[in-house]
């Protein structure tokens, strides 16, 4: 079960794209109640870039991220992550994919209350029964500013600190893609800024690929690229200019 997923040499995507989605449709329900959460989305994400996904409620932004991360399956269309076609994988293969290639940061931190900060950070490695790279672990913990909080339990940490633990947990496996689902949705502005700086830094310093869903213009402004969805369709794809410009963009979408 420890077999790693190998990249498909016949990859059609350009070399620089680490995640590609083609012809994504996701339909919930049937007949009258049919909802087209995604209605024909084609999108590719380049390695080492920080992309924000925005859109009003029901635009399909969360669905898109879930499908890219293999948490949900598209009705039609294909997703390729780091050269692996993921839409046909079974649960075991998806688990392996998450161990090898994906990192997650959630809105509600989702730390294990019974483990210390450091244990939470090492959790993906323990689950996969891999030996941690001591130097890298120390560097990640140092980088998220938790060196003096290693032994603290989540309940002894502030919300911002908890989310930094979550970011460290996502970085510790050096994933091909880091998915962040509203990572600042539960934080005050100071803590939000810290977390966003961390994500930005991971892209700049470690060439990390980050895909983040957010509804906060400030957050989106930290990215290299902003894509926006509306009614399940991709309606905007450009580098963000400023938070104010993002607010204007959202107004036109709403």
């Amino acid at each position, binding site marked *: *079960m420890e077999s790693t997923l190998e990249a498909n040499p016949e990859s059609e995507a350009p070399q620089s794209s680490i995640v590609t989605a083609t012809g994504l449709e996701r339909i919930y329900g049937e007949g009258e109640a049919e909802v087209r959460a995604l209605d024909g989305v084609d999108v590719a994400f380049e390695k080492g870039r920080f992309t924000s996904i925005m859109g009003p409620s029901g635009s399909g932004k*969360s669905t898109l991220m*879930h499908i890219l*991360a293999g*948490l*949900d399956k598209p009705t039609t269309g294909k997703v390729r992550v780091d050269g692996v076609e993921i839409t046909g994988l079974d*649960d*075991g293969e998806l*688990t*392996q994919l*998450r*161990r090898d290639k*994906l*990192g*997650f940061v*959630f809105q*509600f931190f*989702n730390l*294990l*209350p*019974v*483990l210390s900060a450091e244990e939470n950070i090492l*959790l*993906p490695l*323990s*689950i*996969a*029964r891999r030996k941690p790279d001591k130097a890298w672990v120390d560097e990640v913990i140092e980088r998220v500013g938790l060196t003096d909080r290693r032994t603290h339990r989540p309940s002894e940490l502030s919300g911002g600190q908890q989310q930094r633990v979550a970011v460290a*947990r*996502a970085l510790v*496996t050096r994933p091909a893609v880091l998915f962040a*689902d509203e990572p600042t949705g539960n934080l005050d502005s100071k803590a939000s800024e810290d977390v966003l700086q961390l994500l930005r830094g991971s892209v700049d310093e470690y060439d990390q690929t980050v895909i983040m869903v957010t509804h906060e213009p400030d957050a989106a402004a930290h990215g290299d690229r902003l894509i926006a969805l509306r009614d399940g369709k991709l309606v905007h794809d450009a580098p963000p200019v400023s938070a104010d410009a993002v607010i204007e963009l959202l107004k036109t979408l709403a």
Partner: protein
Amino acid sequence: MLSLTFKNLWARKWRSLMTAVAVVFGIALVAGTYVLTDTTNGAFDDIFVKSNEGIDVAITSRAQVEQQDGSTPAFSDKYLKKVEGVDGVKIAAGSLFSQGAILDSEGDSTGGGFAPQFIASELPEALESLEVVEGHRPEKADEVSLDQAAADRSDLKIGDTVQLVGTGKATPFRIVGLTQLGGASFGGTSIAQVLLPQAQKLTGKQGEFDQISVQADPGVSPEELRDRITEVLPKDLRVETGAENAKRSSDDIRESLSFLSIALLAFAAISLFVGSFVIFNVFSITVAQRTREFGMLRTLGAKRGQILRTVLIEGFLIGLVASIVGIVVGIGLAKGLSAVLSAVGADLPTKALVIEPRTIIVSLVIGIGVTLVSSLIPALRSTRVPPIAALSENIVIGGKNRLLLRSIVAALLTVLGIGLIVSVLASGSEGGNAALQMGMGALAVVIAISIFSPKIVRPAASLVGAPLERIGGLTGRLARENSQRNPSRTAVTAAALMIGLALVSFVTIFASGLNSSVTKVIDQDLKGELTLQGPGGFNPISIKAVEAAGKVDGVEDASAISFSQVKVDGGSKSLSSVDPSTINQVMNIEFDDGSPQDLTNLKDGQVIISKDLSDSTGASVGDSISVLSQTGKKPNLTVTGVMASGNLDLLGDLVVTQNEMIRTFGVDTAFFALLKVAPGQDVNTVQKRVEDALDKPFPTADVLNQDELKDSQKQQINGLLAMIYVLLALAVVVSLVGIVVTLILSIYERTRELGMLRAIGMSRRQVKRMVRYEAVITAVLGALAGLILGVIFAFLLGIPLESEGFTLSYPIVTLLFILLLTAVAGVLAAIYPARKAAKLDVLEAVSYE
């Protein structure tokens, strides 16, 4: 609000059903017990009413002292003349109805297990209640009629031969008729009828009757005739109308069977007690999970009382459904119980199941009551939810500040429980009351432990979880942490299991102690290498069989020992008789005052008593004590020795000569006999010779060497143990259901957490393993606590029995096996929750709120 309750229940129907299961088993056992005993009693009523048909007045003897087999002494046939002389008697006849053995021509018994077999005499047509369904009544000395059920059981037909064994040699009879009692069932009991003189000869009651039956002249009422007959007969004969006799016989049976329903109801109570832990846990967790909902209801204007009511109504409805299901299951169980009883040899008579309104009412009241009481504390907690809970993420209610109260209550209960136990030990009292007090003490300790156990859970789980962490790494670690996360939840779940396991280990240790004590007594105190006993060791054997065994080549001595219940100072005591000339060759009896030589010197009119009896009556050597025999005689016997205690009371409280036993106490059969093999003779060869010598004339006598005797004793103990295990299994299963429900609820609570774990790479297998380990930790915690408690209780209860020669022994291997079995049960309990946890959709789990 009521419709909300219904909707809530429906939305959580699986959880509610699982909760109900906690009560269903207990209620099923309650209802099943009632149905079983009502049905059995009803069947006996049928038997006695039918067997008294045509009989206006019945004359029997009064047993002055109740005997263990319930028999009454026979009385002289001279009274028949007196009865016949009474004005208004149309017909009167004496009859016999005594326990004996009915064997087919191969020597195999026609009955099953403990069910008695009766040798009866034929009555005149007018008074006879058994109807002939095939053939005819016995008319000649060598003819017998057999009840049809017994004949069917043993595949006997008219013309076949059966052997009847009473107090003498086996005698062959030819079956000429098959009978039945108006379609009534006898269970495993069989009846053989022969002519009166033959019956008297077989049962050793020459010139005696067990009963005189009378039919009145037309116009004379049974009551009137009863009164007239009473006047001419001595007081020790009981004169009743047929209806009175039937009623008294039924009542006697009811009373002697009541131990069965008491025992079964005790197990039902244990199961319900365990179930109440499960219900408490489920409601606690449910209330905690619905904190937000309660807060929301409060913001909408719901009063505390309304919140309380919704939770309690849920409890009521669950209790109601559980009770109804329990009653239905119980009715089925009644049949099952009866099958279990007949499997262990107690084949009770049956008829169509009797379901009294009382059965339904009691079951409903108990089922609903237990559920309501168990849900009361969680329900009260729900009323403390503030409206703000509707808005905030995690509000924890109740708990912390009550630690002091908890500790005080737990400490008080422990003191009370141990006090009760110690006071029983100190007072040295014995019997049912002492056991009840001890039971209450044990119960108090159990409750105290359950209250205090949340404090113990953390360190204990670390201990139990350590090996799992070593094997399972992270999953083991997380499982352990999860079990410690909510200590009171784990504690209650484990405590439920603890109760069952404490009882299981207690009876296991106790039975093992009993086995080893019996073995010890056989090894040390029985010098006779061979034992002669009746079928199953319960039925008497003929003195003649003992005499015949004594004549076999290689047998040096054959010493018969008989028993009878007598009364001393109004208390029922067990009296034995020995053969003074041989008893010291076959048995090793120690004396407190005197020596074994006193046994050899024992004369008629003398008695040797136990230390216990000497202590309680103050009688010592040289004193004279008055003993009431079953036949109503009141001899004064001179004490010539006092036996030491400590050999399981092999000879009871009083020992007299064989002659005295026959003459004064009316027992002319042996309960068992010990044979001393002559020096230099091979025991097995002699055993074979004795068997051969007795086989034809005394087919019911068994010859056992010491190993076989130990085995037969062990078999009896283990048979009883097996039945207790089956009944305790109910309580254990209930507590396992508790583990299942608690796990499911915990998984539900941790949905998001599980989703995260899956998202960062935990496989389904790992999730399953984690849940399984948690179940194992809880199960082993409960089992360990139960084992420790069981050992302590067995130790405490063993102390007062030590003086009677009871020594505890700890079956370590068995106990470890029980521990292992519980761990496996934990794994089984985790199957469904683990599957549920592994199936959790990662996406749903992450986006779950």
